[in-house]
């Protein structure tokens, strides 16, 4: 008797489940494929939704139609019982080959649909992508904002990374902090000796250049930079020992840096002159502590913009780091 009843049912008749994504589009999916997702399964069983177009199951917000297509491909392959483990692995490997953005979307979609095997697969793929990359590369791959201070960036890697660049940056940052502290001390000492100098810029220049204090001033791009004679070259020589290509870029970088940093500051030529006199006094105070590497513009910010100076120092270190990175890329591309 039962055979007769079975013979009446058409063998190709499949039942479909209706799914609706957040943007309003509705599609129908074969039942076995849709039931592979625990969330859809639960919805169908508990609430009976999905049986017709009007009662389509509303999918979570993170599932957009494109991702839904990928997920359904995955379900369609895996819900078939007869496949061997090797076949499934091969399919997974091919499936996972998509760009990082899609992978992340897939992970969140799979998590909201509670499709654990797919979550595992995508997480493993993302972990493989993260491994072996430097922080800069990770930021590029995942479009992360670069919002950490230099210290926060370098502290966890202090011992673990062998990279000489990291150690260099650590040392550079420590040196900058020390200079910052000394600058603070100097500033506190000279706050009483405010004096606005009325001399013109040219007079000042000639004054500095004539004085045999070992400092020379030059005007570049309408910016006055005071360098300690000889010190700059020794600093360059020190860097030379580690990396040859830094010398050329150092002087270029300093020249570029000055206009860039000045542009962001509200100071005008008046402050330029006033602070130049202060810088001259600084050199009278203790020429030993005046670091030629921090260009004159750092002195400008001394007034009431201490956090700004800190930011500049950070930015300098960052530029340095970026330059090292680009040098590294350059060298590796050779």
């Amino acid at each position, binding site marked *: 008797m039962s055979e007769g009843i079975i013979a009446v049912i058409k063998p190709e008749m499949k039942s479909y489940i209706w799914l609706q994504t957040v943007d309003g589009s509705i599609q129908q999916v074969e039942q076995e494929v849709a039931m592979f997702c625990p*969330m859809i399964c639960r919805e169908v069983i508990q609430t009976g939704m999905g049986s017709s177009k009007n009662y389509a199951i509303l999918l*979570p*917000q*993170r599932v*957009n139609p*494109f991702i839904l297509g990928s997920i359904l491909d995955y379900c369609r392959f895996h819900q078939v019982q007869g496949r061997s483990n090797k076949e499934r692995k091969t399919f997974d490997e091919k499936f996972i080959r998509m760009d*990082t*953005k899609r*992978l*992340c*979307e897939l*992970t*969140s979609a799979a*998590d*909201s649909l*509670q499709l654990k095997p797919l*979550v*595992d697969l995508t*997480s*493993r793929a*993302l*972990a493989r992508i*993260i*491994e*072996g*990359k*430097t*922080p800069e590369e*990770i*930021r590029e791959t*995942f*479009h*992360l*904002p*670069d*919002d*950490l201070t230099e210290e*926060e*960036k*370098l502290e*966890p*890697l*202090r*011992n*673990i*990374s*062998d990279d000489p660049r990291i150690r260099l940056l650590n040392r550079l940052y420590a040196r900058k902090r020390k200079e910052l502290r000394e600058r603070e001390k100097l500033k506190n000492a000279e706050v009483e000796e405010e004096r606005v100098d009325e001399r013109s810029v040219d007079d000042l220049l000639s004054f500095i250049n004539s004085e045999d204090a070992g400092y020379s001033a030059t005007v570049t791009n309408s910016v006055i930079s005071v360098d300690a004679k000889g010190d700059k070259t020794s600093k360059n020589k020190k860097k030379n020992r580690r990396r040859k290509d830094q010398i050329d870029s150092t002087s270029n970088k300093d020249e570029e840096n000055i206009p860039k940093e000045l542009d962001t500051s509200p100071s005008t030529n008046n402050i330029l002159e006033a602070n130049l006199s202060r810088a001259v006094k600084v050199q009278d105070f203790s020429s030993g502590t005046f670091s030629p590497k921090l260009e004159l513009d750092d002195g400008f910010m001394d007034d009431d913009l201490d956090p700004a100076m800190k930011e500049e120092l950070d930015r300098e270190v960052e530029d340095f780091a970026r330059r090292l990175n680009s040098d590294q890329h350059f060298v590796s591309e050779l």
Partner: protein
Amino acid sequence: MAVCCNDYEDVGTAASISSVHPDVIRAHILTRLDGPTLATLTCASPEMRALSSDDGLWQDICTSTWPSTRDPLARRVIASFSSGHRSFFSDSYPLLHRWNPPKQRPRRHNRPSPATELISAVDIFYKDEVIFSKVHVTETESGWFRSSPFRIDMVGQKETVVTSISRNPAEDEDEWMKHLEENMKMSWIVMDAGKKRAVNLSSRNPVSVLRHWLTGEVLVKYATVVAGEPRRGSAAEVVQFAATVTFGAGKSKGSSGGGGGGGGEWEEVTEVNIQVEDMEGRILDGRDSLVILTAAMESGRRMQREATAKEGFEEFEEMKRERKRRQHRAERALDMACIVAGVTLFVAFWSFILFR
């Protein structure tokens, strides 16, 4: 089924990993990363830093790398470190740099005060399986410790540790030694609860595997070379921390002979200890060793590269030999001078007597 409030975008360069819910990142992705990768990720962005600084993650990494850190005492000490397990990992995972060059030595008035108590966490691995794991506390304040030679023992006098290492009888001596050298790894981490620092004193792989000439025991040695006293020319200018695992000459028979042949013979570990050796081969006493150890913990530079450990050991041996040769030469020169002086005196005396 948490729903994140980020909007998805089809087109554009929107941030991608932030669209994955933090719980998912924490539970699935970060748990699959190893220590150095997680440290790198911490530096990427503020969000990643917050997620990666979770102590639970680092605790899992530490306990899987060094099972002895599961011990409650060890765990308590590590929890008091500045960034918990993460700083502990950063202190102990890389190996000590071979030799601190002279200009990095601490100035006298800056020398850190020595530790009051040393906690050693030792793990020995054979073919990536743990065969020995123990935590031991050594007090350092008593006069006995300071004056006697520095030595920390992990296995008691009459105890032995039965391992699952069995020697293939077909292998000859050299092959067996080489096999041990390639497959045994050890980590000896010393923690200072007061200063909240730790250091790994063992090179990960053995620097030498030898058979003792008298007792026939096999000694597997792991060594790290560090700077010692700042006094130039002293024997303790460069010292070596040598941790040794001794395989006893006796073997225990395997009881239930599952699988292959009848009862196999399992190797026994009779000693696991660490000592400090200077360039003349002398063992340093407790007080000096403690000073050197504290300095290494505070300011020793750590490196990831493992290949340098064996080179460092060989360099140290070479330094020892060189020193010995120099002393020998100095002694011979002195001897020669004395003999010449004596002969001259003798000849002068007799010529004076005879040719008066």
